[in-house]
């Protein structure tokens, strides 16, 4: 392996270097994630007032909003990682995408669950076929499909190739649908996001704990992906060693 003269991000594409670096990094990220999560949620849960219209249910915002954000961002990260795999064939990148998917899935499920639980007393319904809710349901299906495809294919490189194409296609469809829906003026969220995001999030008393919570979720995502990518790297190495053993 040639030594890069300037340290670039790509040195971490080396599996061994990735594990060595994250050996030192992961505990800090995990700890920071825990601190932010606990701070944000406790602050939001115990130390914020109730909303005039929504009562105490506004406290759900400290989980619902960060998880929804991470649900989308996880897929974006997978998209970038898939593109890096397609272009530069760095295994760590493909494995990172694989590692991130279950985390993204859980985020999506949390967003859907908290949304439904919040929606029932607020708008009298667990579900509505509005653009945002439907797109999150679709996102859940994409996550399941992506994870299932990885599991179904034996050859690691083939699996990486096919899943990254799936990720790309899914992303394009998501963008297409987003543009289509922007012309379509219906939906439960339309009213809610205006009142919640603009009027209420302007209120610092809600906004600050929300920011801390979001930071916590982001860090949690990063910590989990780092941990899971390490696992994938090791699993892959184990498979490679076993395969070599069988040939000798």
């Amino acid at each position, binding site marked *: 392996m040639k030594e890069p003269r300037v340290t670039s991000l790509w040195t971490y594409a080396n599996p061994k270097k990735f594990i060595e670096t994250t050996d030192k990094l992961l505990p800090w990220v995990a700890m920071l994630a825990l601190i932010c999560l606990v701070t944000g949620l406790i602050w939001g849960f115990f130390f914020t007032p109730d909303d005039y219209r929504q009562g105490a249910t506004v406290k759900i915002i400290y989980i619902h909003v960060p998880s929804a954000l991470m649900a989308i961002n996880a897929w974006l990260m997978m998209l970038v990682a898939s593109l890096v795999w397609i272009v530069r064939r760095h295994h760590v990148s493909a494995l990172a995408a694989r590692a991130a998917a279950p985390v993204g899935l859980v985020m999506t499920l949390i967003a859907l669950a908290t949304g439904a639980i919040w929606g029932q007393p607020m708008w009298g319904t667990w579900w509505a076929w509005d653009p945002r809710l439907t797109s999150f*349901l*679709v996102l859940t299906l994409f996550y399941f499909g992506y994870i299932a495809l990885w599991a179904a294919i034996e050859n690691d490189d083939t699996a990486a190739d096919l899943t990254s194409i799936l990720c790309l*296609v*899914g992303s394009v*469809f998501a963008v297409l649908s987003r543009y289509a829906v922007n*012309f379509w003026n219906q939906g439960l969220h339309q009213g809610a996001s205006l009142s919640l995001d603009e009027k209420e999030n302007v209120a610092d008393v809600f906004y600050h704990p929300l920011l801390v919570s979001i930071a916590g979720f982001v860090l949690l995502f990063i910590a989990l992906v780092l941990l899971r990518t390490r696992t994938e790297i090791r699993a892959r190495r184990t498979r490679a060693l076993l395969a070599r053993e069988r040939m000798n």
Partner: protein
Amino acid sequence: MSLLLGTPALSVIGTFGAALTVGLKRGGLLLSLLVLPLYVPTLIFGAEVARRGMVGLETTVPMLMLAGITCGAIALLPFASAAVLRVNLR
């Protein structure tokens, strides 16, 4: 009318799913799972067109959406399917 607009998208999506799962044992279930989220926009706009048509409302907007999705799908998926088949036939 909405069927006419939507069918090419559905068939191109189906081909993509089939390409991904070709050669997999019991690939049928996985195929449905992969293809379902891709079907959803087409199904929703198609249903909207039908609904509005039945009630007598104007159907232009959802028809345009449907046409847009179909065009996007037809433009993109054949290339994606070809790439997938190239990988699977290696």
